[in-house]
């Protein structure tokens, strides 16, 4: 397989995953803005959303004020924002077109239809009232693409590269969601257990589509400890760091078997997975949650670089 084909499959999946994550973050932001007492922290909430989307700097280079309207436009439609839903879907589709013969008709149709429909939407129509519908549609389009992929693609090296794209993106996203609010998760935080914290925690869980499943696993009220545990260490939570790395490791092992070659990226994934399997929340909090998350993000970037290098991505 051409290195570029592998790269196209990796980024195709990665950008579809990112589009979905962007929609989820926006959803959280607009919910926060509706909450009682949100007025004072309004701008702060949107700022943390931009931070979690890793577009805070890009945003402030273009806008002075942080308003719900401007953030939504920026994250949905701005062509200069490489992570806007517009850019994600366009990049995903361009990558798909470049490997049209390596993906299935179902995958192509799903992505193509989403892009065509999205590009018809006028930015002005994404008003506050219509925003929730639009965000739901983006999420379900991503689910549909994933379904088409899982249901139709050959389980060969191409599949592996697409999965590496999905899970490096997801791990990155979950880490950033935790990091945007790491201070409300610290056990010694001043207002532990207050209403504001409770809202912030709900926001974190919602951003990771985890607010319902959380209750099933922990059968109680929100605690900072459990929330962090859920999103970092829980192996059964499909957006947790542990889950993502278990998947990345097994996918890389598949490639190792197929190609008969092992390299740095296999070791990196194995090291991170071992750390996650043996860590405890006590240890992570002791060493510093923010430090842990920062270290994790750079490790995850190193893994992408190592995969790109080893498999000859352009």
């Amino acid at each position: 397989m051409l290195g570029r084909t592998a790269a196209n499959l990796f980024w195709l999946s990665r950008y579809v995953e990112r589009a979905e994550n962007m929609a989820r973050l926006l959803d959280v932001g607009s919910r926060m803005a509706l909450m009682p007492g949100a007025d004072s922290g309004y701008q702060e909430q949107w700022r943390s959303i931009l931070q979690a989307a890793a577009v805070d700097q890009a945003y402030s280079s273009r806008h002075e004020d942080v308003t719900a309207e401007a953030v939504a436009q920026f994250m949905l439609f701005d062509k200069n924002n490489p992570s806007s839903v517009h850019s994600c879907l366009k990049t995903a589709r361009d990558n798909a077109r470049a490997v049209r013969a390596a993906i299935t008709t179902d995958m192509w149709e799903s992505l193509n239809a989403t892009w065509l429909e999205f590009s018809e939407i006028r930015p002005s129509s994404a008003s506050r009232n219509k925003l929730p519908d639009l965000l739901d549609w983006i999420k379900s389009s991503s689910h549909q693409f994933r379904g088409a992929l899982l249901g139709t693609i050959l389980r060969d090296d191409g599949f592996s590269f697409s999965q590496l794209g999905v899970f490096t993106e997801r791990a990155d996203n979950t880490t950033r969601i935790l990091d945007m609010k790491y201070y409300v998760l610290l056990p010694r935080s001043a207002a532990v257990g207050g209403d504001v914290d409770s809202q912030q925690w709900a926001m974190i869980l919602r951003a990771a589509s985890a607010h319902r499943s959380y209750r099933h696993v922990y059968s109680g009220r929100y605690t900072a400890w459990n929330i962090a545990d859920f999103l970092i260490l829980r192996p059964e939570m499909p957006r947790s760091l542990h889950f993502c790395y278990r998947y990345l490791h097994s996918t890389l092992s598949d490639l190792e078997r197929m190609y008969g070659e092992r390299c740095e990226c296999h070791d990196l994934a194995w090291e991170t997975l071992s750390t996650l399997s043996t860590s405890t929340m006590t240890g992570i909090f002791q060493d510093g949650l923010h430090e842990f998350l920062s270290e994790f993000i750079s490790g995850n970037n190193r893994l992408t670089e190592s995969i790109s290098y080893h498999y000859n991505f352009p």
Partner: protein
Amino acid sequence: MSEAGFFNEMLEPDGSVRRPYRELQAWLEQQSQQVLRQKVRDAEAIFRRLGITFAVYGASEATERLIPFDIIPRIISASEWRRLERGIEQRVRALNAFLHDIYHRQEIIRAGRVPADLILQNEAFTPEMMGHDPAGGVYAHIIGVDIVRVSEGEFYVLEDNLRTPSGVSYMLEDREAVVHLAPELFSRCRVAPVEQYPELLRRTLESAAPPGCKGDPNIIVLTPGIYNSAYFEHSFLADQMGVELCQGPDLFVDDGCVFMKTTLGRQRVDVIYRRIDDAFLDPLTFRPDSALGVPGLFDAYRLGNVTLVNAPGTGISDDKAVYTYVPEIIEFYTGERPILNNVPTYNCANDDERAYVLEHLEDLVVKEVHGSGGYGMLVGPASTKKQRTEFAEKIRSNPRNYIVQPTLALSTCPTFTGSGIAPRHVDLRPFVLVGDKVRITPGGLTRVALKKGSLVVNSSQGGGTKDTWVLED
């Protein structure tokens, strides 16, 4: 259903049905308008599903249009086809011999049969090719010959495309669509198959492997990328042949050999079916600003370590000014009379012919020698007085830059239109493969001018396509 002055491929002037079209006529009579309309919609859905689109430059980035497809096939009898086939084979053999000669001893120039200036001063002449012997001695492996019909017995070659002709994917997909939508009609006629084309293309490319290549040659298709208007076809052909579709940056040259970058490291490339123009192939030899090509590719080619299909420099044989000499070229290299005629062409450098041209511009078509795609062209009957005055001035000041032809009475074929079945003008592009032998896929791409009375079949100007049936005896 007939239109005065034009040859109708289905109906005789007295209303009787020409033999090859009898089954079709009977079938059409059984179909209601609604059924046909539904079939047209089905066809569109099939094409959209498969993603057979072409990009429209300059239009919004999401715009990829379908080329309209007409469900009614164009039919050619076995005996008509045999003649076309012999004529095309003669032509492509002569043009390949011409290319070999032009890039070696230039006997045809020494013999005074074509003017030296016409070749040596021509933009399409590629001096870098002098003295090079391509693998197997073939320069143009993949050719699309544009042919028009004007009467029962008269076919003319309008253009020989020996650079990177496109459209073969439509030939294949149009057939798929018709077999799917009108199986009962298809099974009643004995239609020569076309679906072997990708296999034959692959074999042709294999036969072009460098002599030093051991084992199965590694073949690739080289595309400029997803924004090229024919990208769908590049991707389609690579897929159908089961070979990699590469872009320039996927390849590199090391020690005179071409490699592609794979997930398992470098892999040697032996044959490149390139859909990139000569000028962009190699920034070190041709246009230095080309980001589409591969630095060092041409040197690797000259060393005989990789084969480029078609060879660089084939453009000299389908140049519009050289076109007028093709009958000479055929006679010079084959010793035979041309089986297929050129469209009569006026030479403006000749005083008498120029005088005739300038007096009759309203009835003539003027083409710029180096223009293509309908640019720099005057279609007399559709022109304004101002345009004619401008062109007359241009011809006077630079007569060699123009060729002039009569407006051709393109034949018509029954076509499904908004207001029922009506005759529309068509042309034909059969696809030719030259390897160890010459293989011509029976049929080709029929382009149809969907607008009533229009003689312009280009897809960019409202043209559509039809499946082309060659009947077997």
